[in-house]
Every structure is written in structure tokens, then in C-alpha cells.
């Protein structure tokens, strides 16, 4: 990250000075410092390469890769090759002498990443830059002129160098490596394009030197040795920790298998699932440790009426489940103390007479803060991973350069299954053909009528989708209202019918079952509507497949958001506002049960959808239609389903602290079901899938509508809605948020030394101003971040333009220099090294 920033700075520097005319060499030298530094650095390498060519085994052969004479020995043959290459260039149609060609062949662009000398030299320069940045001490003037990269240095070096030159460079590199911190050194070593043997040699030397001689006279060798050992020990433990973490990595083998068959796109779905799993494990651990465990230890005496277990409870979460740690209503409103438990007052001071005060646990407070803190941490993790993902996927997308990119970066090296490899090459083939078609079409342009027709179709499709989404939301609204009224009447009836036991049981069962109607309707809408959208999307024509994907995602998202909005209104507006209507003792538990039902039914529907959508479809298409094609795995839709489920889980955490556990089980099962179905029924998607970009979109969607929506509704519940008066940790309070306030008051009276804590609480939690300010700062940080990214994007595109201009100018210069070189060379035959250099310097 830091290195990149520096580059920007320097390049900006460049940009400013390109305006000046580079007449004076000094001006050029200082202004183009970086460019020239790089160039000359690699020129040095170029020189090293010349020597190296005798040593290195680089063989060349066009067709058979058989051993061929190495370049230096057969300069003549090489020269001819180059001539052939040059003839192709329309601008250079002269014939070059072999000496010129030798110089040409050692140009940096021809040796980069190739010869060892070049690489060592390049990394020498880099370590130098790092050193300079990290510690100001070794400035450029401390080094000898030859170590300082410059164009003039090249002229000298190219003539006096011999085999020891590389050794010297290597020594300098080792020297530089020692100056770096350990982590920088390791990073450098890892990134060097050298073989492991050479790297470990460099490493050994870098470490040995350090141990062998004192770093500076002021430091004691004993001390430094101790430091060295400590560092070694720390490194060892760090590595063992890393390998321990690595062994914890989940699903290594299945993920490899999936990516081997379906490539990066499908893999991104499973990776997303894994991320969600970790979020839920985190929530589960926090809730389990701070809420469920204390409550389970201090179990209240079991309620006397033990309901019969029918099995339906597993689906509805009602019945005997209602009064367990699963739901809000079970949690105590007392301060749980170890040893003796008798505290009848809701607001018990922590130091009761007769009880040791140290092990007390204030349940309402714990409930409030656990939920709040876990949401806060989740939020931070989400925003962090979002920005990281943005940074990773962010590149300038230019239409130009698309074909080349397709050729060189579309092959997915992960894919190892034969049929998938075949499919992949077919896909690339069709994509290339499409691109070629586009290139030729772009030149033609389209008629107005054609465009108008297309716009009409798009408008129609959008209207259809919006209407159906609105219709679905309205349907859910009225259906939930109907079910609400239905439940009211049922509840009233059962209350009246209390005498006859058998019938009551029957009715209760019916009542329970009727609760499942709403989740079933919502889930089936969720299952069917994307099919409608797909059908609508099928008649639209889009230029690029990525737009099509985004449109599909947006429509699905709109549907899910509107459904969830209606449902939130149903729970918080209807149920919570008037719980007495349903004769509910504890509306929070009821909402928790509803969310549990939704989560479960959604899972069941997903599994059914997988079965019918993928398995039966495959059977149908293979047996009946006798086609070879299998259904594709719809990544976007599946990921949106995951996001929907996660939103439900986040919404429900407040009402049912163990909901993350349900979600964990669901995700685990889903992973294996989806994987099995994928392996059995699907083929790799035919459309190109820009995995890195899409995972950014997904994580953004997870953050923005999903998490933010859940957080807003949970906060709303905590701040404004009156909790149930007969159950849960907040009974007797006007809002959940009062729990903290009360505790603060108690703390103030009990322990005057802790007033600062009270003050913090009043200013930070109670005062809405602080919340607004912190939210504002947060938003501002995000805004600035996007602005910075945007600015960088602009700078990058500017720089790219600059580079293109510069490179073309440099190319011209190069050609000019080569012709000069050639003419001078021909004038002064026989060629001597001295004249060579003179000619070069005269050119500069």
C-alpha cells in the first residue's frame, strides 16, 4: 500500500515536469529521476545480462525446445533473428551491425525478469528505496556513484564490468536486505523472481552478516545478539501460529474440488458462504458466552405446565421451546449472583447483604451491551472487509485492451477437470468470437429505430418487474394482516374453550400450524419471483453480460428488501405495538419465533428449490429432451438468498440470541447440499464471471441494505418500543435502553469513585447527539475514502495517458539513438569500446 502511494507521488512529480522542456541534462536528471532511475537501473542489469548470457543456460528454439546454442556464443544467429524482427517494423528498415544488435539485445526491456543479474540489480534498487523511506540515514549520497543509478553510470559500467560485478551487486543487495526490518526482508525475498536456492542463499547471507558483526558501534553485541535470538524465537512462534491457523482453514479439499470443476465464479459463492459462517460463529460465541451460558447456569425453576412435544415445535419454534434460552422471554431481569440466588427486586444493587458481591451478573445490562457490542464489531468488520475488497478489485476498466486481457487472463488455472477444461476453452472461444463481432459492430453503429425498440423492451421489462415486486409486497402486506386477524380470532376461541382438554390441544396445534402460513407464502414468493425476473430478462438484450447480471441482482434485491420491509412493519408495527390483542405475554419471543420460522422455511425452500430446480431439471433435460446440457449454477441468485437469510438472522438476534446457532447449522447443511447438487447436476456457467468485482458487490450488499437495515430496526426496537412487562430481561422498563441508564444511577450511588463511567455513559450512549456525531464521522470517513479512491482513479487514468505519451516518445528516442549509434559505429570501424561509449555520451 505504502509503496504504491510513493509511486503516485513520484509519478505526479513527473507529470508536473513534463511540461518543461528537458534541455538541460541536470533538469532532466532531477525531474525524470524516477524514470531514469528505473531505466538505468535496468541498464545496469542489461550489462549484467551481457556477461551472464555466457553463463546462463537460456536456450532458444522456436518449435521443439530442444537444446540450442546459447545466445552469446552465437551472436550471429541471434543477430539474424533480431534483424528479422526489425524488418517487421515499418519504421526501422535498416540493417544493423552485430555490435549494435548486441547492445540492443541487452536493453532492459529484453532482459527484464530474465537474467539473474538483472533481477538482483532491480531488487537492489528496490531495497534501496525501501531503506531510504524507512530510515532517513542512508541517503543517496552515502553510496558510491556506481551504486547510484544514473544513465552515466551505465556507460562506465558496461565497459569495465566482469564476472565479479554480479557478486558485488549481490553483496550490496544483501547489505540492503540487512538494513530492512525482518518483515520487509521476508516480503522482499518472497517477491523476488529468483529460484528458491538463490533466495535462501541471499537469506542466509543476510542473516549471517547480521549475527557476525556489530550493527553499529554504539550497540553492544551481547544486546544485539539477545535481540536477534528473541526475534528468531518470535518468528518461530509466529510461524507455528500461522501453520496452526492454516490447519484450521475450513473446507480446503471441497473448495479445491469445486474450483477445479467450476472455476473461480462458483467458488466465490462458497467463499461468501464461508464468510457468513464466520460472522455467525462470532455472534454465536459472543451471545453464548455472555448471555446463554450465565442464563443456563442460573436456570429458574421449571414452569409447572409441561407441554406435550409434538414435533411441530421444531418447525414453529413454539410450544415447549418458548420458554428456553432460545428466546428473549426466558432471560432473567435480575442480577445473577453466584452462590445464593435470591433477588426479587428488579433493580438490585450488586452488594446484597449475605452474598459475596464479586460474582454478580447483571442480566439486562449484559443483554443490552452484548447485542450492541456484537452489532458494532460486526459493522466494523464488514466495513473493513468492504473497503479491502474495493481496493482489491478496483482497476480501471477501459474498453481498450479488452481483447488482450481476455487472451492472457481468462484462463482459470484452477480448473483441472477434463470436461470443465474443455468447456472453458469453448467458452473462451465463443467469448473471443463475440468480442471480435463487437469490434466490427462498434465501427458500424446502430440505427435509431433499433435503439428505440430496445429501449421500449427495457422499459416494458422494468415496468413488469416493478409491478410484480410491488404486487408481491402488497400481497405479503395483506396476507400478514389477514393472518394476524385470523390468529386473534383463534386465540380468543381457544381462551373461551378452556374446558375441554382434547379440543384445546387440537386447536392449539392448528393455531401453531397456521403460523407457518406466512413464512411459506413469503418463501415461495422468494422462490418463484426470481424465475419471473429471469424470464423477463431473457427477452431483453444487453450489450454486456455484466450489465445483465447487475440488473438481475438489482431486481432480486428490490424484491427481498420490499418483502423484509413489509415484514418488519408487521412485527414492529402490528405485533409489538399491541401485543394484548394476541394475548401475548411476550411479544419479543413471538417475533423471535417468527424469525426462527422464516429462517427454517427459507432453508427448506432453498433445499427444495435446489432439488427441483437443479436435479429434476437435469433429469428432465437429459432424459426427456435428450440434451447434453445441464443447468447452470446461478451464482447471483444463490448469493442473494444467502444475504436474505443473513438479514433474518441479524434481525432476530435481539429476540432470539441463539438464532446464529440455527443459522450456523443451516449454512453448514447448505454448503454440503449445494456442493452435492453442484457436483451432480450442474455445469460450469457459460457466462464470464468477474469474480473479484462480484465479491465486492456482494459484500457491499451484505453491508448496505442487509446489515444496515437489520441494525436500524434493532436500534429502533431498543430505543423506542416498550418491552413486555411480564417477561424478558427488560420487564418493568419503558424501553430496553433504560437498562443501562438505571445501572448507571445505581453505580453512582453505590460507588462514587466510578462517576466517570457514568459520565461516559450519559454522554456516549444516552445522548443522541453523540450517536449522531459518531455516525456522521463514520459516514464522512466512508465518503472520504470513496473520494480518495475516486481521485486515485482519475490520477491513474491521467498517468496512464502520460505513460502512453511518454512511452511513444521514448520509443522514438530509442529509434533515433539506435540509428545514431549505427551511423557512428559505421564511421569508426573497427569498433572499439571507447568510441562506443563516446558515441553514446554524445547522444545524450
Amino acid at each position, binding site marked *: 500500500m505504502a509503496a504504491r502511494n510513493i509511486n503516485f507521488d513520484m509519478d505526479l512529480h513527473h507529470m508536473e515536469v513534463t511540461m518543461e522542456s528537458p534541455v538541460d541534462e541536470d533538469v532532466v536528471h532531477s525531474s525524470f529521476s524516477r524514470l531514469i532511475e528505473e531505466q538505468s537501473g535496468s541498464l545496469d542489469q542489461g550489462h549484467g545480462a551481457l556477461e551472464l548470457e555466457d553463463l546462463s543456460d537460456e*536456450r*532458444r*528454439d522456436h518449435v521443439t525446445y530442444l*537444446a540450442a546454442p546459447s545466445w552469446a556464443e552465437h551472436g550471429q544467429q541471434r543477430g539474424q*533473428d533480431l534483424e528479422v*524482427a526489425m524488418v*517487421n*517494423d515499418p519504421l526501422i528498415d535498416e540493417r544493423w551491425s552485430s555490435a549494435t544488435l548486441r547492445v540492443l539485445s541487452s536493453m532492459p*526491456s*529484453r532482459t*527484464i*525478469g530474465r537474467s539473474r543479474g538483472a533481477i538482483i540489480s532491480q531488487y537492489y534498487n528496490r531495497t534501496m528505496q525501501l531503506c531510504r523511506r524507512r530510515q532517513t540515514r542512508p541517503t543517496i549520497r552515502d553510496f558510491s556513484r556506481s551504486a547510484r543509478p544514473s544513465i552515466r553510470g551505465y556507460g562506465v559500467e558496461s565497459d569495465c564490468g566482469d564476472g565479479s560485478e554480479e557478486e558485488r551487486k549481490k553483496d550490496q543487495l544483501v547489505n540492503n536486505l540487512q538494513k530492512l526490518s525482518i518483515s520487509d*526482508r*521476508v516480503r522482499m525475498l*518472497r*517477491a523476488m*523472481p529468483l*529460484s*528458491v536456492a538463490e*533466495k535462501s542463499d541471499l*537469506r542466509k547471507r543476510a542473516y549471517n552478516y547480521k549475527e557476525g558483526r556489530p550493527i553499529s558501534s554504539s550497540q553492544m553485541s551481547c544486546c544485539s545478539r539477545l535481540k536477534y535470538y528473541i526475534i528468531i524465537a518470535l518468528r518461530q512462534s509466529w*510461524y507455528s501460529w*500461522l*501453520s496452526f491457523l*492454516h490447519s484450521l482453514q475450513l473446507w480446503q479439499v471441497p*473448495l479445491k474440488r469445486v*474450483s477445479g470443476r467450476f472455476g*473461480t465464479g462458483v467458488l466465490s459463492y462458497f467463499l461468501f458462504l464461508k464468510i457468513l459462517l464466520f460472522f455467525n460463529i462470532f455472534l454465536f460465541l459472543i451471545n453464548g458466552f455472555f448471555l446463554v451460558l450465565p442464563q443456563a447456569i442460573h436456570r429458574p425453576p421449571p414452569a409447572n405446565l409441561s407441554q406435550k412435544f409434538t414435533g411441530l415445535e421444531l418447525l414453529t419454534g413454539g410450544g415447549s421451546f418458548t420458554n428456553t434460552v432460545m428466546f428473549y422471554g426466558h432471560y432473567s431481569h435480575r442480577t445473577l449472583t453466584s452462590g445464593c440466588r435470591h433477588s426479587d427486586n428488579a433493580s438490585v444493587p450488586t452488594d446484597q447483604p449475605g452474598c459475596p458481591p464479586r460474582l454478580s451478573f447483571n442480566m439486562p445490562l449484559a443483554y443490552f451491551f452484548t447485542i450492541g457490542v456484537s452489532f458494532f464489531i460486526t459493522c466494523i468488520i464488514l466495513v473493513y472487509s468492504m473497503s479491502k475488497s474495493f481496493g*482489491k478489485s*478496483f*482497476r480501471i*476498466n477501459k474498453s481498450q*485492451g*479488452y481483447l*488482450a*486481457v481476455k*487472451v*492472457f487472463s*481468462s*484462463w*482459470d*488455472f*484452477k480448473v*483441472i*477437470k477434463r470436461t470443465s477444461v474443455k468447456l472453458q*476453452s*469453448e467458452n*473462451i*472461444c465463443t467469448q*473471443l*468470437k463475440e468480442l*471480435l463481432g463487437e469490434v466490427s459492430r462498434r465501427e458500424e453503429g446502430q440505427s435509431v429505430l433499433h435503439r428505440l425498440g430496445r429501449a421500449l423492451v427495457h422499459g416494458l421489462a422494468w415496468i413488469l418487474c416493478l409491478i410484480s415486486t410491488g404486487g408481491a409486497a402488497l400481497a405479503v402486506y395483506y396476507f400478514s394482516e389477514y393472518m394476524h386477524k385470523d390468529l386473534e380470532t383463534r386465540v380468543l376461541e381457544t381462551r373461551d374453550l378452556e374446558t375441554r382438554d382434547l379440543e384445546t390441544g387440537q386447536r392449539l396445534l392448528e393455531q401453531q400450524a397456521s403460523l407457518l402460513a406466512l413464512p411459506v407464502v413469503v418463501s415461495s414468493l422468494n422462490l418463484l419471483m426470481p424465475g419471473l425476473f429471469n424470464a423477463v430478462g431473457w427477452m431483453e438484450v444487453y450489450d454486456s453480460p455484466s450489465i445483465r447480471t447487475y440488473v438481475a441482482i438489482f431486481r432480486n434485491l428490490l424484491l427481498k428488501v420490499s418483502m423484509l420491509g413489509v415484514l418488519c412493519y408487521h412485527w414492529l408495527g402490528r405485533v409489538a405495538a399491541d401485543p394484548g390483542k394476541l394475548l401475548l405475554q411476550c411479544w419479543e419471543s413471538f417475533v423471535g419465533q417468527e424469525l426462527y420460522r422464516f429462517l427454517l422455511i427459507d432453508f427448506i425452500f432453498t433445499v427444495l428449490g435446489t432439488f427441483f430446480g437443479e436435479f429434476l431439471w437435469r433429469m428432465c433435460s437429459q432424459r426427456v429432451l435428450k440434451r447434453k446440457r445441464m443447468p447452470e449454477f446461478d451464482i447471483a441468485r444463490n448469493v442473494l438468498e444467502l444475504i436474505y437469510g443473513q438479514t433474518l438472522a441479524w434481525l432476530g438476534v435481539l429476540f432470539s440470541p441463539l438464532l446464529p446457532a440455527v443459522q450456523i447449522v443451516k449454512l453448514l447443511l447448505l454448503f454440503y447440499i449445494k456442493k452435492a447438487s453442484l457436483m451432480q447436476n450442474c455445469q460450469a456457467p457459460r457466462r464470464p464471471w*468477474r*469474480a473479484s468485482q462480484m465479491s465486492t458487490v456482494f459484500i457491499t450488499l451484505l453491508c448496505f441494505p442487509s446489515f444496515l437495515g437489520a441494525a436500524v430496526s434493532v436500534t429502533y426496537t431498543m430505543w423506542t418500543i416498550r418491552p413486555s412487562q411480564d417477561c424478558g430481561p427488560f420487564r418493568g422498563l419503558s424501553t430496553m435502553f433504560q437498562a443501562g441508564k438505571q445501572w448507571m444511577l445505581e453505580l453512582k450511588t453505590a460507588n462514587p469513585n466510578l462517576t466517570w463511567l457514568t459520565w461516559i455513559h450519559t454522554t456516549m450512549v444516552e445522548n443522541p447527539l453523540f450517536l449522531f456525531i459518531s455516525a456522521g464521522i463514520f459516514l464522512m470517513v466512508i465518503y472520504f475514502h470513496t473520494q480518495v479512491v475516486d481521485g486515485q482513479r482519475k490520477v491513474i487514468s491521467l498517468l496512464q495517458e502520460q*505513460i*502512453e505519451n511518454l*512511452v*511513444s516518445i521514448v*520509443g522514438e528516442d*530509442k529509434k533515433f539513438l539506435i540509428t545514431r549509434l549505427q551511423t557512428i559505429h559505421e564511421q569508426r570501424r573497427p569498433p572499439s569500446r571507447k568510441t562506443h561509449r563516446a558515441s553514446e555520451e554524445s547522444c545524450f
Partner: protein
Amino acid sequence: MGNKQTIFTDEQLDAYQDCTFFTRKEILRLHGRYHELAPHLVPMDYTNEPDVKLPLALIVNMPELKENPFRNRIVESFSEDGEGNLSFNDFVDMFSVLSEMAPRELKAIYAFKIYDFNTDNFICKEDLEKTLNKLTREELTSEEVNLVCEKAIEEADLDGDSKLSFADFENMISRAPDFLSTFHLRI
């Protein structure tokens, strides 16, 4: 199998960890994979760094590479002698560069080597044709191949010499966000 055998010394493992993107455990696993390619050639004991090289034909048969159209070029690019014989160090090198952690630049250098079929340090039209034919299993017609080659070179070539130098290649790769994830082999 049962008794514990030292394959590498601690110092060797540290060196591998510092120089590659693998942890101890992965290095040992890689050794296992290398060993099972030719159990009679590769010793279990690597503490004295034996000079063993496996020929290209054996390496290419690994399931990770078997179906890859560029398998020969990958192995050749990483072999020290340029003929496709891989020592264990080269083997580790190969998977290190192709691992998830390797930075873009390192990957770009080796990708360039892989696509540079005739090892002349340029991707010229001839290399591009070979790449295309391997990518598409020779499904494109020769005119289409020609057209794609021309367009691709035209797009990516910055200095106007109608072939791609490493600088051109790197610049082009920097615009491909998926390159990092696709130039990656899970071992």
C-alpha cells in the same frame, strides 16, 4: 510412515518459509507430492539437499497440471535448466508463484515467461497464435486467430514495436482484476 522421519532440518524449513509463500506444513505436503511422483528417485531425507530432478513428463502428469493447456510451458518456465527438469526447489517455486499469496508482479513475470513460447523475451505474434490455439483448442479459424492477434497486440502494445514486451504485458495485466485469482493453483 509410522516412525517420525526428519525430511528437512528446522533451518531449511525456516528458509523455505522466508523465501516462499508456504508454511512448514505445506512445504512438507509439497515434499510428499514430489515424492509420490517418483518414489524411487526422490529420497525422503532432504537434509543434505540431494541433487534430484524430475523430468517434465512426470511433473506434467500431476492432476493439477494434467489438463492445463500450458502445462509444458509452466514447467519449463520454472525449471532451472530450461528443459523442464524440476528439482524440489523449482517445484516449490512453481507452486509458490501460483499460490494465492503471490503478488501481482511476481505472477506477471512468470505468466509472461509462460506465454513467451520462443523465449525471446517478447510476446510476438507467433507466441500469441500459440497461446490462442491452446486456449481455444484450435477452434478458431486462422483468419479469426489472425484478427485477434492483431487487435490484441494493437491494444496492448505501448511502444509501437508490434510485439509485447514485459512492460506492455505488465501494464495490460494491471487492468485485469481477475488475473490474480485465475493465475492461481490450489495444491
